[in-house]
């Protein structure tokens, strides 16, 4: 038998693999460190944003005693906050509506030292509802246009100069600044888009009478309203959605299409039965992410849809579906912009600012989580 242990030297010789150091070695370590630090920088930014907002925002929304949630903040619309001292020396902090009630209830109390803080009272129900509506319109319009475009581009169109031009246009659309989208939305949807009316406005670009009725198609625009805002957001998110939908369509194996066509299916039957069902989950998840991104945009809606203050909720005192869609709404991004930059700052505005941002962040992250969840769920379900 050959004994291996005999071949291993009894005494330890100098390590032949010892580091020789040198410039190359130092450069290697330096590069690795620099790359690592740059990556950690992201973590720092994200951490700072989330921790700061959670620390300062969470106490506005949650509280220590049951029901643990500040219900007023989520169910009231923004109001002016009144702080005042009464003649009996007590200090009060009341929303404006409660303040009026207070004055009626205690007419004898003399109020001294009265301060009003705009947008610092009430809650954020109005902006939340408005953003939900804008996003809803955006989803419907963007998915419809985006999906149809992607299907056409990927399944029907032949390659050529014209298609290249269209793709270039879509890519360029993604690079347009959001404020330009806002102005575009104002120009197209608010001022020019067609409406059907019996009495066209003087300012209409032009009007077309509808035969055999008294009505006209009047290109007078929809005015500043949630419909215009939703459409503007939709146009803005379109490039993302088209790209996402096209990627999902491309991921479907050619074999599914061939098998379906070879069985005598028409092109549309093939798309509807053998392509879309499998592409849909991917389209949906990517689209949800894109839409949550634009749901937080301020510039596109500030010209087209958003109001900083509105007493009524969108469904109060409206006249039909048309009236519902053609009203302006409050919206979270615009509300945050207002409370952060357009009102006098005091310690009383802080809770509103951080609370709003916190709630908005949570909502957006929930949607992002939903999209990830959907993706995982469907990946498990559909495999090939």
């Amino acid at each position, binding site marked *: 038998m050959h004994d291996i242990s005999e071949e291993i030297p009894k005494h330890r010789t100098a390590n032949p693999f010892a580091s020789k150091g040198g410039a190359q070695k130092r450069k290697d370590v330096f590069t690795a460190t620099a790359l690592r630090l740059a990556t950690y920088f992201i973590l720092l930014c994200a951490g700072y944003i989330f921790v700061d907002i959670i620390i300062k925002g969470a106490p506005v929304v949650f509280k220590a005693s049951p029901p643990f949630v500040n219900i007023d903040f989520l169910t009231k619309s923004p109001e002016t906050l009144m702080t005042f001292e009464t003649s009996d020396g007590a200090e009060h902090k009341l929303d404006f509506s409660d303040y009026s009630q207070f004055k009626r209830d205690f007419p004898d109390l003399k109020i001294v030292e009265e301060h009003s803080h705009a947008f610092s009272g009430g809650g954020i129900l109005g902006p939340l509802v408005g953003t939900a509506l804008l996003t809803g319109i955006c989803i419907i319009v963007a998915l419809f246009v985006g999906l149809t475009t992607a299907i056409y581009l990927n399944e029907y169109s032949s390659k050529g100069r014209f298609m290249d031009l269209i793709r270039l246009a879509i890519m360029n659309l993604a690079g347009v600044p959001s404020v330009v989208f806002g102005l575009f939305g104002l120009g197209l949807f608010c001022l020019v888009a067609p409406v059907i009316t019996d009495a066209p406005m003087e300012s209409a670009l032009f009007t077309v009478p509808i035969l055999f009725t008294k009505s006209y198609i009047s290109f007078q625009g929809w005015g500043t309203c949630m419909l215009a805002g939703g459409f503007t957001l939709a146009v803005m998110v379109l490039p993302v959605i088209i790209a996402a939908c096209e990627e999902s369509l491309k991921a479907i194996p050619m*074999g*599914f299409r061939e*098998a379906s*066509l*070879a*069985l*005598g*299916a028409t092109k549309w039957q093939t798309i509807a*039965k053998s392509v879309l069902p499998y592409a849909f989950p991917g389209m949906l998840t990517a689209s949800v992410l894109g839409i949550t991104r634009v749901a937080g945009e301020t510039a596109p809606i500030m010209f087209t849809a958003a109001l900083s203050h509105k007493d009524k909720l969108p469904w109060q005192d409206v006249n039909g579906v048309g009236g519902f869609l053609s009203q302006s709404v409050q919206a979270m991004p615009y509300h945050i912009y207002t409370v952060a930059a357009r009102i006098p700052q005091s310690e009383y505005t802080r809770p509103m600012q951080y609370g709003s941002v916190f709630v908005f962040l949570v909502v957006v992250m929930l949607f992002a989580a939903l999209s990830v969840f959907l993706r995982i769920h469907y990946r498990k379900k559909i495999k*090939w």
Partner: protein
Amino acid sequence: MKTSMSEQEKQEEVLTPETKTANQPVTRENTHDLVIDVDNVSFGYVPGKDVLRDITMNINRGEVTAFIGPSGCGKSTLLRCFNRMNDLIPTAGISKGEIRILGTDIHAPEVDVIELRKHVGMVFQKYNPFPKSIYENVAFGLRIQGINGKQALDQAVEESLRYAGLWEEVKDRLNASGLGLSGGQQQRLCIARAIAVRPKIVLMDEPCSALDPISTAIIEELITKLRSEFTIVIVTHNMQQAARVSDRTAFFYLGNLIEMDRTTTMFSNPSKKQTEDYISGRFG
């Protein structure tokens, strides 16, 4: 072709009875019915660059016809001409000649390619069941034709799966995903799916190239069985396979049809040097 036909008849006379039964179609009287008639066809994926040149051949009813030849010789391309799958490539097209299937020029303006494909089924190289249940995979072709009655579908699904020799293996899990089957089973599922719409012709594009020998043997057995009902054209790289399953074989080389004859003749006594070289493994 005319001369080879007479040679082929002579050849048949000297066949031993054993090989005769192995290679003869079940419906003897229909043997000479033309099902596919390729008349001097040239085809290119790009205009001006033909990859198939002057192909003339007949494919008979109830026979298994094998296309053999080295990669890139155009055998799959010709197969995909028969159900016009090449239409998917915008620039591709026949530059010359005519393909008649069941007597009709398949490029005639009054031919609806959808209807053509209902008569000319296809099984692909890479088995491609839909990510649906086994049942829905087989029923797919019927559903798109508007057949949705449960009884009709149940019957067609069972029949097709029995044909494909898959029924016993899957009858208890028809609602399980088709993707849960083994590779060979998936390919048989694809065959069941193709024959569920009762095509006259089944085109098979290297149906066994992604399968192990045992699955291949099962599919070959299945092809021999299907011959009684369907006219089958099979593209294969495997010459033994062609010899085992086909009645007639066509040898392609560089876009030309070199020789087409009865398989037994072709493998025992090829008339062209190139065919002999390829079959004996000298190139390809």
